[in-house]
């Protein structure tokens, strides 16, 4: 089956300034693609390029097998939800939702039926005769979604649709979008700077920085096997521990040596028969460091560490220690006996470890 959206070698520049460089992404029908990255990474520009709202400098975009590179937005069979919602201020909610159909000359009976369907689906029936100015943020968000849903397009585009909502509403709208995706089986492209949103919604994530794709993969791939230091640091909260370390060979074995704040360096078993360089950065997520005795596995190794800080967070307790000159966070269970200033035996799950080259930042294993 052809990919529903296929972006090939897409570049965009304003004069000398390169906004997007050599982007290659393809997704299948029913995928939920999330473009994530810090502000200014070009993710919104890429979305606008997919929509046809911004011309591209090189490369091609095809939707459902048709080349859309130079096709105007209205002929791309897409619908878009904007961060500002962009509801038409002088039209009622009903008119906002049916505007697209009216422009396209859909007959009034069909318009009414579809409006009815969408209003029921989003529970906005009582709002249909109001104007956007009379709605709350969450209601506007729903109307904006309704305007997209009613079109039944090949591709839904979302440009940070939740970032103007308060924290609680954001979480509930997030799961609603997810439910919608599951029930419609629609293909969606979603832009966000929130990595948690990306993880929870996506079937496929594109992590971007400075107009360059850093990694493309499923949420699990991105989370467990980050392609470089940027992705490792950006995805996950608290962030992945990135600890400077040195490798040492002992016969067939490779040992990883990590400096401790006091006493001898810590020695961990490295991967067998690997060809790691001398200086590396070791990446380990907070949940892969546990209190000794609470984690089992064939590659779990324990070591005594001095605890500098204990941060109870309800379900978990985070403790901070110092390794390799960096603060290292471990995620322990809530009833831990860890005390600041005291030593504690921490178990490192080396099956989950990532190695990065300090100079290029690229993943080594």
């Amino acid at each position, binding site marked *: 089956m052809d990919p529903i959206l296929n972006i090939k070698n897409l570049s965009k520049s304003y004069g000398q300034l390169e906004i997007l460089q050599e982007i290659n992404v393809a997704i299948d029908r029913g995928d939920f693609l999330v473009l994530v990255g810090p502000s200014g990474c070009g993710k919104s520009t890429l979305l606008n390029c997919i*929509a046809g*709202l911004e011309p591209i400098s090189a490369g091609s975009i095809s939707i459902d097998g048709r080349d859309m590179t130079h096709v105007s937005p209205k002929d791309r069979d897409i*619908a878009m939800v904007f961060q*500002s919602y962009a*509801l*038409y*201020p002088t*039209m009622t909610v009903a008119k906002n939702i049916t505007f697209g159909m009216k*422009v396209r000359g859909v007959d009034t009976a069909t318009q009414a039926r579809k409006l009815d369907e969408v209003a029921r689906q989003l529970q906005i029936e009582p709002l249909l005769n109001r104007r956007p100015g009379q709605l709350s943020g969450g209601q506007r968000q729903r109307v904006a979604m309704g305007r997209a849903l009613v079109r039944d397009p090949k591709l839904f585009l979302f440009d940070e649709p939740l970032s103007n909502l308060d924290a609680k509403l954001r979480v509930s709208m997030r799961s609603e979008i997810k439910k919608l995706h599951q029930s419609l089986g629609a293909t969606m492209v979603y832009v966000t700077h929130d990595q948690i949103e990306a993880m929870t919604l996506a079937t496929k994530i594109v992590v971007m920085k400075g107009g360059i794709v850093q990694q493309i993969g499923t949420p699990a791939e991105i989370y467990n096997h980050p392609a470089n230091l940027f992705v490792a640091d950006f995805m996950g909260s608290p962030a992945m521990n990135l600890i400077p370390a040195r490798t040492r060979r002992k016969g067939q074995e490779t040992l990883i040596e990590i400096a401790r704040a006091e006493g001898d360096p810590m020695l961990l078993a490295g991967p067998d028969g690997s060809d790691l360089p001398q200086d590396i950065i070791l990446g380990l997520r907070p949940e892969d460091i546990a209190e000794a005795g609470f984690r089992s596995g064939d590659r779990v190794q324990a070591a005594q560490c001095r605890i500098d800080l204990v941060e109870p967070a309800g379900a978990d307790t985070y403790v901070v220690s110092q390794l390799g000159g960096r603060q290292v966070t471990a995620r322990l269970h809530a009833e831990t006996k860890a005390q600041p200033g005291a030593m504690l035996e921490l178990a490192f799950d080396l099956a989950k470890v990532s190695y990065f080259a300090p100079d290029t930042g690229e993943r080594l294993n």
Partner: protein
Amino acid sequence: MTDFISSTGLPAASRAPSRPAQIALRWLLFTLLGVFALFYLMPLFVMVTTSLKSLEEIRTGSLVAFPREITFEAWRTAWSGACTGIQCEGLRPYFWNSVILAVPAVLISTFLGAANGYVIAQWNFRGANLIFSAMLFGCFIPFQVVLLPMARMLGLMGIAGTIPGLMFAHVIYGIGFTTLFFRNFYVTVPGDLVKAAKVDGAGFFRIFWSIFLPLSLPIFVVTVIWQFTQIWNDFLFGVSFSQAGTQPVTVALNNIVNSTTGVKEYNVDMAAAIIAALPTLLVYVVAGKYFIRGLTAGSVKG
């Protein structure tokens, strides 16, 4: 405030003016405002009362006195009997000339301004700023400078001395202002609106017609008032680009006042001046509320 201070035992005068001083200040303020208001209303008062007097009474009475006997004779003469040169038809035909001139000229220049403003504010194209600057510059070109080129232009177009010709001059001259007004209003409209409409399938004119024009009521009113006042009150273009039958009311008013033979009919002059000024006054009264709102409006909450 003063109560609070005196109840805490502090000497009131050291912190704020004492109560009598405050009252005195208040009175001074209102008296001053009253005097200014009277000063500005005086000419209108004199005009209205004089227009209601008979010539006999004007000659014998005082300028600021109320009319002893109210007569609308002067108004009747001004409207339909006063002489401009050799014709004695009053202001009426010229008043209608002005209406026929001003209404289309105002509407055309306002719509053109809206369209220009929409394009310049929301459709970024190469040179948009340059074009806008050029139009802005057009606002500051004095009337006198364009008189000769415009006369030649109207001659070439074959509409010299006609009402459409005068209309053309006013529309061209007004586009700079109307574009400025609408452009400044439309830049405050979020650009996502255009994007959303594009994705919805609307084209350039559809977006203008269905989304931007309905938003524009406040600025529309401001522009209409501005343009109507400009065009209705204009004298220079009127006197330069019209001929005997096509003169606007301002030119006719001038002719009435200047072409009296024998006794100067002040009451007729005053009545004629009021008639000529009435439409602009009316526009302010009807649309003034929107005028203030439009001048302060900028952001479009949506």
